[in-house]
């Protein structure tokens, strides 16, 4: 295999994962999704590390990735605990619930125009199977007999 091309491809994939992770981290407001984006960035780094490990024919990159996984596990544990606590206090996972640490004279960021909540789909009762006879209502039965 062309090792250089392999490395190039992996580096590009890693860079893209990092970039997409950045987009997710910046744009999304759900704390859990932000966290997923963060993990995605870590994945991008892992990809590049593993590819360098192969290119240099050295175990260091893979070992480092093992440590990244370890750290990610720790991070997930702590972050999840924190997020749960924040959720319990604020009643939501929005990261913008937590902007109390701003300067006192800075206006809080408030979303004035919230999107419409999606319409709950009307309760659709299960269809009867197409086979069989459709039952008549009482009224229809009455009409047919008038």
């Amino acid at each position: 295999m062309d090792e250089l091309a392999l490395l190039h491809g992996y580096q590009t994939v890693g860079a893209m994962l990092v970039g997409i992770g950045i987009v997710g981290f910046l744009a999304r407001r759900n704390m859990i999704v932000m966290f997923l984006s963060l993990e995605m960035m870590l994945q991008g780094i892992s990809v590049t590390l593993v590819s360098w490990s192969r290119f240099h024919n050295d175990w260091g990159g893979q070992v480092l990735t093992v440590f990244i996984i370890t750290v990610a596990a720790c991070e997930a544990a702590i972050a999840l605990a924190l997020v749960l606590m924040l959720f319990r206090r604020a009643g939501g996972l929005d990261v913008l619930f937590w902007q109390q640490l701003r300067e006192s004279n800075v206006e809080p960021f408030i979303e004035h125009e919230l999107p419409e909540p999606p319409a709950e789909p009307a309760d659709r009762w299960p269809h009867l199977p197409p086979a069989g006879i459709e039952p008549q209502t009482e009224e229809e039965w009455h009409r047919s007999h008038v």
Partner: protein
Amino acid sequence: MNAMQWTFVVATISGALALWMLLPRKRFRGRRLGSLLGLVSLGLFASQVPLPGGPAERTVFIVLAGVTLAAAVCTVTFRSPVYCAVWFGLTLLGVSGLFLFQGAQFLSVATVTVYAGAIVVMFLFVLMLSDPRGRTYYDRLSWEAMLSASAGAVMIGVLSMTLHRVFVPEAAPPAADANNVAVADASGASANAEATNVPALPEPPTSESLQANILAPEHVARLGGALFSRYLVTVEAAGVLLLVALVGATSIMAHARFEQLRRSRHGNG
């Protein structure tokens, strides 16, 4: 600006647009156009990357990378957080496949075990308990969608262009001064590398040397050997870190539970 640079610029712009369209916003969503633009962008980026190996390997790589990146985009753009998590699980599977493609068996399996098996499941837990239907407003809003998308896309563009410059030196742009084109051409790639501060890459490894070391059949034993000899101290540190994280998470939750109990005892006081 030559064609290569134009490609990167177009790819970056279309990527930014695609991400912007795909990200949840208040009204307009334009998912199809976004997807299309995203595919275009991905294709443009991919067109600048030489693909490794024979046709079978190329196919496998393209599929793996494509699935990974598509799943990654879906992770950050889907509205329902549960879907995001599932897409992230798919991203992880893709990354795991990429690892396996590189011969890093242990890592590929460990990634799935730890990330997909434990971390993401935990997140799914939280998501399901916090908001089972995914109908909250903050999942339907992005913070500065355009700016964020541009930042990410520019990051990707800059990094890809840099990678391209490093790995494909002969395709690098000529020096900025148009008068020196001939000189730059004459001096060749190495001079160009010097001019752009690009360090020279080491020789790629041969297949035999890889088989002797990093692709050896006794993969796990080798990795373990490296972990527990050269990186032993780091392993210990990681162990301590895990322990501390365990204690920390437990104490945070215990504190929360304590607070809850206290409030229930003293009548919300």
